[in-house]
């Protein structure tokens, strides 16, 4: 999130009672204690069955009914239109243009946060899904037959979304003049190009198939939506057991890559101005020495680092999975790799919250303040009388931010441990073997927690 000079938006330096690194030790101890508590008290799988309970029929009829679907879809299309228009016609000052904050903060960070609580909200507001379904319905009405689609290659799975996710972060964090971030105009053009690509893919493979597998935002936000307690099935809203919907998420090929891309891209963004700064400068220097210009060197260097983050996070996960194979009765490596992929979802959310919580709080003041009244940022409109409002950075102290970051990381990793333990009990019905298999996931969780806290401590310092 480098388009504003407030990447992690600290109001002031922290004044912590103990050194930051001690929090990493404390968090590790919490994870180890949680691990043994799970081993002692959780001896049967509890999350494999979602235990769905339908909500009241009238409520389902209203919330899943056509009028509300049309309304939500129209809102999604309208807001995308406003963002594109603001990007094309508004100011190039990134902090004053509606497009960047709306797309990269309100949507990119807001949907994961709210979906994790309520379920997949984006599905209702997805502008491309709304357009695709409308066009499909129009075609069916005129041609008197449903549109025919090509079968989606199963092996492709969610790989287009995984690469797309890295692409979105690349565009936002790395692309841009001088490598410092993307401008509103480029954002609007990217949104238009992506819209054309998405609608074309929907026409080829079908709206729902593409949303489930290839559409970056549906896959990404839907992943976090699996953490939420609400879902729908057969036209009925249902309540489900907390976390239970995550257990079936990673079965589609490429899903593990999506969640690893999420953790890696957040780590890269968190580390580029802090922990990775010195090595990044060295790599950029190599490219400069090789004859690339300043912008090219920066882009290539940062791209290399982002890919290294992806490889690093993937490697740590694979080491954990490989370790499980040493326990007698272990399933194949492939089955383990896919079977434990969903345990990374709460970690991806924890990384998002830890890295962007303060940024989100500050930028939403701008979003619902001056950006709403003056979306183009030209200073000539005041639609809701809030154009003169400014961001109040004193609403969060540096210590509050740090404690939220630590809490998010610890909770996210404990939840990850819970999910891994539950899945291990499926593969090893003997709880002692299941526990032994999870020593490795404990190491993975401790590694991700300490890494996350290190990135934050350097960025905050």
């Amino acid at each position, binding site marked *: 999130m480098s388009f504003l000079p407030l990447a992690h938006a600290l109001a002031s330096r922290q004044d912590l009672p103990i050194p930051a*690194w001690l929090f*990493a*030790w404390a968090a*590790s101890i919490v994870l180890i204690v949680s691990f043994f508590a799970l081993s002692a008290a959780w001896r049967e799988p509890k999350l494999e069955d979602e235990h769905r309970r339908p909500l009241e029929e009238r409520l389902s009829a209203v919330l899943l009914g056509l009028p509300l679907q049309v309304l939500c879809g129209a809102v999604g299309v309208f807001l995308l239109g406003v963002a594109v228009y603001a990007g094309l016609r508004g100011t190039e000052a990134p902090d004053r243009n509606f497009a960047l904050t709306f797309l990269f903060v309100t949507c990119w960070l807001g949907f994961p946060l709210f979906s994790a609580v309520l379920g997949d909200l984006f599905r209702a507001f997805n502008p491309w899904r709304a357009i695709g379904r409308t066009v499909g319905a129009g075609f069916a009405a005129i041609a008197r037959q449903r549109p025919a689609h090509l079968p989606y290659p199963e092996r492709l799975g969610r790989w287009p979304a995984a690469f797309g996710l890295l692409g979105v972060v690349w565009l936002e964090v790395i692309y841009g003049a001088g490598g410092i971030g993307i401008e509103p105009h480029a954002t609007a053009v990217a949104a238009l190009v992506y819209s054309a690509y998405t609608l074309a893919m929907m026409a080829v493979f079908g709206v729902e198939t593409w949303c489930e597998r290839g559409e970056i935002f549906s896959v990404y936000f839907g992943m976090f939506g699996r953490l939420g307690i609400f879902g729908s099935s057969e036209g009925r809203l249902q309540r489900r057991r907390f976390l239970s919907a995550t257990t079936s998420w990673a079965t589609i090929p490429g899903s593990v890559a999506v969640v690893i891309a999420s953790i890696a891209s957040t780590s890269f963004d968190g580390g580029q101005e802090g922990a990775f700064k010195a090595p990044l400068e060295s790599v950029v220097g190599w490219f400069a020495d090789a004859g690339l210009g300043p912008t090219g060197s920066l882009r290539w260097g940062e791209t290399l680092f982002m890919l290294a983050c992806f490889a690093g996070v993937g490697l740590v996960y694979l080491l954990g999975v490989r370790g499980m194979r040493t326990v007698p009765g272990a399933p194949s490596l492939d089955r383990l790799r896919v079977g434990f992929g969903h345990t990374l979802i709460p970690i991806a959310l924890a990384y998002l919250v830890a890295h962007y919580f303060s940024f989100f709080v500050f930028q939403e003041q701008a979003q619902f303040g001056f950006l709403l009244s003056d979306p183009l940022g030209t200073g000539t409109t005041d639609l809701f009388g809030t154009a003169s409002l400014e961001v109040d950075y004193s609403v969060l102290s540096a210590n509050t931010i740090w404690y939220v970051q630590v809490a998010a990381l610890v909770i996210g990793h404990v939840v990850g441990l819970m999910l891994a333990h539950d899945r291990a009990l499926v593969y090893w019905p003997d709880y002692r073997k299941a526990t032994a298999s999870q*020593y490795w996931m404990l190491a993975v969780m401790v*590694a991700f927690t300490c890494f996350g806290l*290190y990135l934050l401590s350097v960025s905050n310092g």
Partner: protein
Amino acid sequence: MLPLAHVGHYLWTLYVLPVLIVAVAIVRSMLAQRRAAGDGEER
């Protein structure tokens, strides 16, 4: 004067230590389990 001017550069080691401790504990317990299993087979 102590040569601590750049000690901050090595702060990351304090974040790696918990991971190393857990990893070493896991490897040690695995080796102990294997040894115990081997002893059981010999008897």
